[in-house]
């Protein structure tokens, strides 16, 4: 297995690792949004979906551990690469400028670290029930023991929580907007006709994901989704 470690340690191997794990994490973010959009279909639908996931047993744990591994590899590789990048330029320019780099591409480390902090908060909030135990308690009292609808709506009824979730979607947009088109280039896909298209698609997909999540966070505040009593 040393060949795999050697590959990971190489510059291109590290980039490919970022691209592949990034693609998998993007897949998760899509599935996560599609699942959560069922909030708009009402409590029965969302709670049934939550129960289905919770009842998957071993499969759920395979998915959870797999996701955790992918996430950790993505973060650890990012740390290794950005440390190497920092030491490759020991003296900064006194006068810096860019020609065509996007803001999103320049701030990947910042947006990535912010997302890491957000994911920790999100898990403490909805998965472990640490930050708002009163919202988390609602999860266990509903139909079949899975009132996720009540948990989510009571949380997003708090303006500060809804705004925090909404704000992080801007960071997620920036990260995905550069990440999606970047992974195509890293995996060797650069094509006269396709590359400009992938660039546009990258913005569109990032906007759809961030916009969908934003809608979830704000719909309770806007009264589109009723707060469970």
């Amino acid at each position, binding site marked *: 297995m040393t060949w795999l470690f050697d590959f990971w340690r190489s*510059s291109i191997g590290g980039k490919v690792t970022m691209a592949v794990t990034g693609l998998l994490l993007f897949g998760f973010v899509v599935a996560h949004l599609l699942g959560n959009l069922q909030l708009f279909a009402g409590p029965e639908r969302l709670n049934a979906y939550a129960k289905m996931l919770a009842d998957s047993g071993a499969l759920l744990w395979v998915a959870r551990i797999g996701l955790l591994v992918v996430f950790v590899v993505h973060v650890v590789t990012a740390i290794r690469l950005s440390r190497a990048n920092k030491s490759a330029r*020991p003296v900064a320019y*006194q*006068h810096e400028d860019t*020609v065509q780099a996007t803001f999103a591409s320049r701030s990947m480390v910042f947006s990535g670290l912010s997302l890491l902090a957000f994911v920790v908060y999100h898990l403490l909030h909805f998965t472990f029930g640490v930050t708002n135990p009163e919202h988390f308690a609602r999860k266990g009292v509903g139909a079949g023991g899975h009132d996720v609808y009540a948990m989510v709506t009571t949380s997003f009824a708090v303006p500060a929580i809804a705004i925090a979730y909404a704000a992080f979607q801007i960071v997620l947009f920036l990260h995905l907007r550069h990440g999606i088109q*970047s992974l195509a280039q*890293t995996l*060797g896909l650069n094509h006269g006709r396709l590359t400009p298209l992938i660039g546009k698609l990258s913005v569109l997909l990032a906007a759809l994901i961030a916009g969908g999540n934003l809608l979830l966070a704000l719909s309770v505040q806007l009264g589109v989704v009723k707060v469970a009593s």
Partner: protein
Amino acid sequence: MKVVLHIWRQTKRSTEQDHKQDGRMVRYELADVSPDMSFLEMLDVLNEHLIGRGEEPVAFDHDCREGICGSCGVVIDGVPHGPERGTTTCQLHMRSFQDGAEIWIEPWRAAAFPVVRDLVVDRSAFDRIVQAGAYISVNTGAPQDANAIPVPKADADRAFDAATCIGCGACVAACKNASAMLFVGAKVSHFAHLPQGRVERERRARNLVAAMDAEGFGNCTNQYECEAVCPKEIPVRVIAEMNREYLRAKVIEQPAGGKQIGGHG
């Protein structure tokens, strides 16, 4: 025209322990600049003044002054080779600047390119990368007929896009991560499109990337600043091609001394 220059002055060579040494930005005012001067001629004029005053002239690299040798190159206002696209520093003219402009002039900044003096950096890291496999192995002797190996026009054009690289190092200087991937990508792409180069393609991709990593260059994060400053306008397509060639080489690679399982041989 008049310009105010801020130039990096450094007398001792950068080391791994001390990259900055005694380096600092020094301000110079220059009143007798013609818009028709090239950027390097403007520095020549500055140096004439400095020598006249008994000061040490500013050291900078230059050779052909025709934009084809790759010797010159400084970072001008944060952009390698300055504000004009597809232009080397020697082909940049003072008419590209406003009268009275303040201009910041710094050397290429990369751990792999130690500053030798002032604006001169040591780019022998590029030579070592080229030595690792940016060539084809052929017996010398009488050249064979030019048309003996047919090369489709499209392939020849793509190979030539990469072959225009003059090895100036602006790509490294522009990259936020001081990555040399446009340079190495150009070497890989140059040969990957030609039948003569394909024979050694796996070995070349592996060795060039290993040599690049050993020199301490950073890793590409696809911001494409390199492409924007390249005086030969080499496209970032060559980086994608290098990634592809490297992945392919890694997939094909056999363990040393190992037997192929399930194969015919």
